[in-house]
């Protein structure tokens, strides 16, 4: 019947059928079902102790929908209800990973996660929570719970042989979701001024609102590398959806994606986001892929966990006695367990007394602030210092695009070099002066460093408000003896930066600005 339908509808529907309705054992989805809820559980556990404060009317709710002008979109719950449901969310993530009442667990976890995300736009909702919610929803639509799960174990004990092969459309939709996400992220980058020059990303690397990111700190010195990475990322994001379904390119795209996301740990200090994405990438594994991977020498021991054929499930099913109906696998037992966990959560949270209002000294007193700190905060606003308008003052000899390819401080006679000024936006139209000074031999500063002396040359230019960086070009020529020199940058007659450099011995002596 299916074959006849296929023949009648022609090749295009055949392709559609093959793409969405091929029947496979959902190994990839099952792996994602096990790993993703456990990753999300980290976030849930960290927030559980604060659930009264951030999700209930006994705290400071900051709803996402209020930001969208829909303050009444979802009901705000009193503390016991919010805590109980948040505990339930954690429990449902655990049962999703275990595969106990998998579909119900995943639907429940997804719904509650969406609710709590909407209730807290400050410390819960991010794009990775949204991605996770999409994936949980699509996992719930799949039959991922019939593999490596409590449900499968119960079915085997009851002697029920599950049909593990099912249409792969939920898995395909997760894959398409990732393609769309990356495409959207690429659009964002197109819209973001200063992204492709790397400046936006450099500022992100200097932002400390996530975790430590040592590689990012170093990369701020090399905006050219960051700029090249930006172009590479953009191209990869845009082409992802068109290439990830092609057999030859699929592994390359996924490998680049995995490396890209792992690198965000070291460059931007993101942790949960890349782990969520990497866990979700498991949905790109097809049945054939898993069989191939298990065939590799390091993974051969895992072969026994593959449910290769219905016979395997059947053999294991008949070898065990079927328990009485209504035991561990029944809905009533599941519902009772969830209810007990939720009520236990409410009781525990109450006993922990988050605000410490019921203890011997409760409510706790407010912490005082030192008067001088308050005076500093409430002092009249000051204009920006000239030095704070400067982002960087760098020297080098090779310009690629608008970036210095290398940072050098030693030059031979006859060489040209660039002194590059980068400013912090926003800034007004500015007049910048750059002076070249000789060093004062024998007159060091308090830290024993050389200090600039007589000005040898001075030049200046106007930097318009829309400009981010500008260059002063110099050529070492006759008149300058080998030795230590300085470049000093002035704005509004105030020195904002200086740079020391060395002129090496050579034939030509002197410097002039172009």
């Amino acid at each position: 019947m299916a074959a006849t339908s296929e023949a009648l509808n022609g090749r295009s529907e055949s392709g559609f059928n093959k793409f969405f309705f091929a029947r496979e054992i959902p190994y990839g989805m099952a792996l994602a079902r096990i790993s993703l809820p456990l990753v999300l559980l980290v976030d849930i556990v960290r927030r559980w102790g604060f659930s009264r404060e951030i999700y209930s009317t006994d705290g400071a709710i900051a709803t996402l929908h209020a930001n969208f002008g829909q303050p009444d979109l979802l009901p705000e719950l009193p503390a016991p209800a919010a805590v109980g449901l948040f505990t339930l969310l954690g429990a449902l993530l655990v049962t999703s990973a275990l595969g106990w009442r998998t579909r119900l667990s995943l639907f429940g976890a997804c719904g509650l996660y969406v609710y709590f995300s909407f209730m807290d736009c400050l410390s819960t909702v991010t794009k990775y929570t949204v991605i996770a919610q999409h994936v949980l929803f699509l996992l719930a639509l799949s039959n991922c719970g019939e593999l490596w799960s409590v449900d499968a174990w119960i079915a085997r004990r009851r002697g029920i042989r599950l049909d593990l092969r099912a249409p792969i459309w939920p898995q395909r939709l997760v894959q398409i979701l990732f393609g769309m996400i990356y495409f959207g992220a690429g659009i964002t980058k197109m819209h973001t001024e200063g992204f492709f020059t790397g400046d936006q990303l450099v500022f992100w690397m200097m932002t400390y609102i996530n975790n430590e990111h040592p590689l990012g700190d170093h990369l701020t010195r090399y905006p050219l590398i960051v700029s090249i990475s930006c172009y590479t990322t953009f191209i990869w994001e845009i082409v992802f959806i068109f290439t990830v379904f092609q057999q030859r390119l699929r592994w390359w795209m996924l490998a680049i994606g995995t490396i890209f996301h792992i690198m965000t740990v070291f460059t931007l200090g993101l942790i949960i986001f890349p782990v969520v994405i990497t866990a979700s990438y498991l949905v790109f594994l097809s049945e054939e892929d898993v069989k191939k991977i298990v065939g590799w020498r390091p993974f051969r021991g895992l072969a026994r966990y593959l449910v290769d054929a219905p016979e395997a499930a059947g053999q294991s099913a008949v070898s065990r006695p079927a328990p009485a109906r209504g035991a561990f696998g029944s809905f009533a037992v599941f519902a009772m367990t969830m209810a007990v966990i939720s009520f236990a959560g409410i009781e525990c949270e109450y006993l922990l007394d988050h605000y410490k209002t019921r203890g011997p000294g409760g409510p706790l007193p407010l912490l005082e602030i030192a008067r001088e700190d308050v005076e500093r905060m409430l002092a009249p606003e000051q204009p920006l210092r000239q030095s704070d308008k400067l982002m960087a003052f760098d020297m080098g000899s090779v310009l690629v695009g608008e970036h210095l390819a290398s940072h050098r401080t030693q030059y031979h006679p006859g060489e040209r070099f660039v002194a590059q000024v980068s400013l912090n936006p926003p800034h007004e139209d500015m007049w910048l002066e750059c002076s070249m000074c000789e060093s004062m031999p024998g007159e060091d500063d308090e830290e024993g460093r050389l200090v600039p002396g007589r000005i040898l040359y001075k030049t200046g230019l106007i930097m318009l408000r829309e400009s981010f960086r500008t260059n002063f070009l110099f050529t070492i020529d006759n008149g300058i003896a080998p030795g230590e020199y300085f470049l000093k940058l002035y704005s509004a007659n105030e020195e904002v930066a200086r740079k020391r450099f060395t002129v090496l011995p050579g034939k030509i002596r002197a410097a002039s600005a172009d």
Partner: protein
Amino acid sequence: MGQPAVNPPREGTGSMKRILSVAFIVCYVSALTYGNVCHLLRHGTVSHTMMYMIVWDMFCGWSAYDSRVHLIAEGESETYYDLSHPPWGELHAFGYISRENYDPFNSHTGTIGLNVLKHTRHEPITRILVIEESWPKKLNLPDAIWNLRYDNPKDRHSYFRVRTILLPDGTITKQQDSFLSCQARKLSTANPRLAQDAFSGRPLFLNEGNGEIGRDLPVGPGASRISAPSAQ
């Protein structure tokens, strides 16, 4: 007995399941496409909260200045209290700063301060202040990296700006734009010709409800009120 039981096939449900599956596939892919098209055209991306679920604007831009929010309360004795660090501890959701620092529009920060007041012991409070501290991000660099790039010593200086002043009942008595918006606005006022044109073109009558950016909002009937923590 030798053969295990198999889930019985459900007659007649196969075609219906397939129709529903195809319908869902079409709807889901259409929703994702709609989100991306809106994002591409910059149209309707904030028309509904659910748009947040299908618009993937994960890189919204980062400014050159870092900022932190300070929540302080002034008591009747003119003693100031710290509301940013409540005595029961604070949640560091994504790193090592608390949740009021993730409120770029300053929409919920006052509520956080009022909640701390509600659950602590203190003298009568006269006002709550939301203060933004800002500094250039280059000063965030570790000293080792700083010394590799900059010849000048690191000279840390913060700029403070009062964003909001609230009464203990949640009434906003003063509200200002952010440090960054203020700096951007100063660019236009730094142009004397533009400032003169704007001054001479300003309407004689104030348009009620459109508070001038950077100036105090009126107290009284026009004063807005943020949601105070309600009793449980």
